């Protein structure tokens, strides 16, 4: 089973700071999804990136899919306490199943 490694595993920052979360694999994916999971809830899809090199923006969140489609990054500008949660990347191998990353737990303090 291939793995999707996320870094950092934990991130604790002050409101207003910028941050980047990385998702890396040795394998190529057809697409990559990013989910956010808040305490007591299941993960919720944020975005899907499909094309190598693709960049998608969702308000203060910027998602990038690597040119080789093996890695992705999530950049948050001016983080807010509401961004607190567990961020999960998930790779698609052209099947019904997803390969989930190890997760990055973000805490944003006011």
């Amino acid at each position, binding site marked *: 089973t291939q793995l999707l490694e996320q870094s950092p*595993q934990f991130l604790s920052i002050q409101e207003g700071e910028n941050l980047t979360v990385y998702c890396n694999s040795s394998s190529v994916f057809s*697409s990559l999804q990013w989910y956010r999971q808040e305490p*007591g809830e*299941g993960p919720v*899809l944020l975005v899907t990136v499909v094309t190598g090199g693709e960049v998608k923006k969702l308000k203060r969140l910027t998602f990038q899919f690597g040119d080789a489609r093996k890695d992705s990054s999530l950049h948050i500008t001016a983080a807010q306490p509401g961004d607190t949660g567990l961020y999960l990347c*998930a790779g698609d191998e052209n099947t019904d*199943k997803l390969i989930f990353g*190890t997760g990055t737990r973000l805490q944003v303090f006011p």
Partner: protein
Amino acid sequence: DVKVTQSSRYLVKRTGEKVFLECVQDMDHENMFWYRQDPGLGLRLIYFSYDVKMKEKGDIPEGYSVSREKKERFSLILESASTNQTSMYLCASSLPWTSGSFSYTDTQYFGPGTRLTVL
């Protein structure tokens, strides 16, 4: 609004007990999944079902079984619970993957999770 519900938010069981976790989705999705979530390990797939009465083992099926008698319902069964099965269990559903030029695996919709403790 899409909805996936799980029968319990918290469950405490004793070693050796048979445990049933139920999941229901109201989106008419073909695919349903059971994951367990442990710190630092992300989500690991236990079982996957792509149709009624159809199932496929995931990465960690040992100690678990599943049942899908109706499209909307997918049950996870721990035949004899053990302490190493203490975890957060998440159910999800999705539409099936379809081939095409720009096809990709569809969004998975998750339930709120069941935190199971086995004593």
